[in-house]
């Protein structure tokens, strides 16, 4: 696991979210069990359970008693929407801060992005 200082259970939740967003975990598909996640990532099973528990609490996953956990319908769109909000904080704000440090204006940034668009 990456040690970026966030609680491990959140990192587990995010890994599962990523698989839902990229489609490798389809809606109504079964999610790996707590023990499978713990063994694969070499982490405490309670930590893995907490990660999945968070996604259940948020309605991203649902439980089927005695069978396991599954992806809720509409989870993918909900996650994409949430990640977009996060995108601004995680990428746009530091981008502007770094540009500021280098004496670049937002207009310059825009034209760089436009150039990118054209060369694509």
């Amino acid at each position: 696991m990456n040690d970026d200082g966030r609680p491990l259970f959140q990192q587990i939740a995010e890994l599962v979210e990523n698989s839902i967003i990229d489609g490798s975990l389809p809606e109504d598909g079964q999610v790996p069990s707590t023990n499978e996640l713990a063994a694969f990532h070499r982490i405490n099973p309670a930590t893995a359970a907490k990660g999945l528990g968070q996604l259940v609490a948020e309605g991203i996953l649902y439980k089927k008693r005695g069978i396991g956990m599954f992806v809720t319908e509409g989870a993918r769109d909900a996650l994409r929407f949430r990640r977009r909000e996060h995108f601004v904080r995680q990428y746009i704000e530091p981008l502007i801060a770094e540009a500021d440090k280098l004496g670049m204006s937002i207009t310059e940034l825009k034209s760089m992005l436009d150039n990118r668009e054209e060369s694509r």
Partner: protein
Amino acid sequence: MTVTAIDAEPIVSVRGLSKRFGDVTALDDVSLTIEPDKIYGLLGRNGAGKTTLMQILTGQDTQTSGDVTVLGGTPFENARVLRNICFIKESQTYVDDLRVKHVLAAAGHLMPGWDREFADRLLDDFQLPLCRKVKKLSRGMKSTLGVIIGLAARAPLTLFDEPYLGLDAVARHLFYDRLLADYAEHPRTIVLSTHLIDEVSNLLEHVIVVDGGRIIVDDDADALRRRAVVATGPAETVDAFAAGARVLHRESLGSQARTTVERTATEPERALLRAAGVELEPVSLQDLVIATTTGAREITA
């Protein structure tokens, strides 16, 4: 998420425990609780008091003062309690003339939860020769024997005190994998005492750090990960961020400073700091232990 009973009886309950050897105080007014079915890390420097604590918990020594309750009873000379404890010591000694299979048979006889089949699988995994005499085993093989007994005993309270002297990285990871897999199937209370903190930090649910005979950290592993950060950047901004919190370490070069500080940063704070050129890095469990135990404090003070 599974919800554990709020009033679950603790496995271990220690109140005001002290142990003195002559004029040396090995444990000084220690109080702690160990809850059922969790993996604990018992960490600290050599001579901090970890082994003394484990010896008292497992009835191999008596305290000078204080109350110790393990599995509902006093451990010392209490067969009912001791049957349910498995303590694998650093440099565990066995009767030299016995063969591996004899030691395992004895363990199977003594431990009520012994799983013979699991022991056989572990022997195979670790490739320990069944018929070899214990005195002919290498240091690593002896450690392996201890690890196999500790796992296959499935004791309600299992303590590993630095169990891997002589074990290479491959064997240690095999141990972690088997421990996690078996713990998931058969939850029980495990206390892992080790200096290889980085290797085990993700396995632990709770961490206890002993220093100079006292407990200086007793917290969830998750909480510890967020307990401190390293902030690097313009000294003024870094110091403003650290103001009012406990600083574990600080160094500076010109206008730049690097500070390890016991506080967290909210997401907006992080964004502001980033914009001001301050980098925030997490502090690993190992670094946190180093920063909080005696030696390091004296060096950096």
